[in-house]
C-alpha cells in the first residue's frame, strides 16, 4: 500500500509519519511537496501535524491554497484515503472536506499530554484493528484543538456515526474532565460522509512503537493496510 506524506512549510510531524509507515509498518511511502501540482500514485495521503505557514491567519487557512491541494481534493472526492492529523485535521476543515472548525483551547495553553480516546466505530478503513469501543491512549499536542460546529452539524455527525474518536476517561466514560480542550461533545476525530477522509487532533504516529510508550497509534496505520488487503479500494 503506497502512502504519501504532504510537506508544507512549517510541517513538523511529517518525518514521524514517514518513519512509522516506512520502518514500523514496512510500507512504501514518499514525501509530497505542497508546491507540486500532481499527486504521485498513492493509496493513502497523510496531512501531518505542525504549523503550516506559521498558523498565520488561522490554522490551516493558507495551506489549503497550496498548489497540491486541488489534487488532494480530487483524490479525496474520488474516494482516496486521506488521514489528517492535528494541523492536517485543521486543514481538512478549512478545505471543507470535513465540517466544523478547530479553535483555540479554552485554557489558552498549548496542551501537550497523553489522553484517552474511545474508538466509536471499528468498521472504517482507519479503525479496523481496534476492538469495538476500545479505549486507547494517544498523545495530543496543540493550542487550537477545540472542535466546534453548529448544533445541526453536530447532530448530523452523531446520526451518521461520523464521530470516530471521543476524549474519554480510561474507563471509556465521556466526561467533561476527560476533555482536554473543550471540544464539543468530546469530539477528537471525525470522518467524512463517504468514510474515506478522517481528521483527528491526537497523534497516532507518536505512539506506534513500544519504545515510544505504546502501540495504540500503530493500530490505525495497520487498519489502513488491512482494509486494503481485504479488498477496500477507491
Amino acid at each position: 500500500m503506497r502512502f504519501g506524506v504532504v510537506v508544507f512549510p512549517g510541517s513538523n510531524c511529517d518525518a514521524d509519519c514517514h518513519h512509522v509507515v516506512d520502518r514500523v509498518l514496512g510500507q512504501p511511502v514518499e514525501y509530497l511537496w505542497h508546491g507540486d501540482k500532481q499527486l504521485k500514485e498513492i493509496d493513502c495521503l497523510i496531512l501531518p501535524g505542525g504549523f503550516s505557514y506559521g498558523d498565520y491567519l488561522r490554522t490551516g487557512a493558507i495551506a489549503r491554497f497550496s498548489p497540491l491541494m486541488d489534487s488532494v481534493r480530487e483524490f479525496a472526492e474520488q474516494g482516496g484515503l486521506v488521514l489528517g492529523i492535528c494541523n492536517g485535521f485543521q486543514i481538512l476543515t478549512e478545505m471543507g472536506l470535513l465540517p466544523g472548525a478547530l479553535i483555540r483551547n479554552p485554557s489558552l495553553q498549548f496542551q501537550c499530554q497523553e489522553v484517552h480516546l474511545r474508538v466509536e466505530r471499528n468498521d472504517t478503513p482507519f479503525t479496523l484493528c481496534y476492538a469495538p469501543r476500545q479505549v486507547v491512549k494517544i498523545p495530543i499536542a496543540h493550542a487550537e484543538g477545540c472542535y466546534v460546529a453548529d448544533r445541526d452539524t453536530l447532530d448530523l455527525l452523531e446520526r451518521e456515526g461520523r464521530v470516530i474518536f471521543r476524549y474519554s476517561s480510561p474507563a471509556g466514560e465521556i466526561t467533561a474532565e476527560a476533555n482536554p480542550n473543550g471540544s464539543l461533545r468530546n469530539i477528537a476525530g471525525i470522518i467524512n460522509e463517504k468514510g474515506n477522509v478522517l481528521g483527528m487532533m491526537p497523534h497516532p504516529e507518536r505512539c506506534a512503537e513500544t519504545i515510544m510508550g505504546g502501540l495504540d497509534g500503530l493500530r490505525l496505520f495497520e487498519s489502513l493496510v488491512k482494509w486494503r488487503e481485504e479488498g477496500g479500494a477507491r
Partner: protein
Amino acid sequence: MFKAVVTVTFKQSILDPQGSAVLKALRSLGFQDVEDVRVGKHIEVLLQGESREKAAQQIDAMCSKLLANPVIEDYRFELAEVKR
C-alpha cells in the same frame, strides 16, 4: 487605489477564549463594569480597482474565501479611496 479595513470576529455563538481571558484581566485591574470582551482581527488591504463597487466585490470575495472562516467567524469592512 482603495484601502479596505477588514474586521473579523468570532460569531456570537462561538466561545472566544482570548476574549474571556482579557475580560478576566480587565476585571482584575478594577474595571468591574466590563460586561464582555471579544477579540478579533484587523486586516488592511490595499488594492487597485476601477470603481468602489468592484473593489468592494473583490474584498467581499477575499473575506469569504480566505480572510474569514464562515463556519466560525463574521466579517465586515470599510473601504476608502486613497492616494498611492
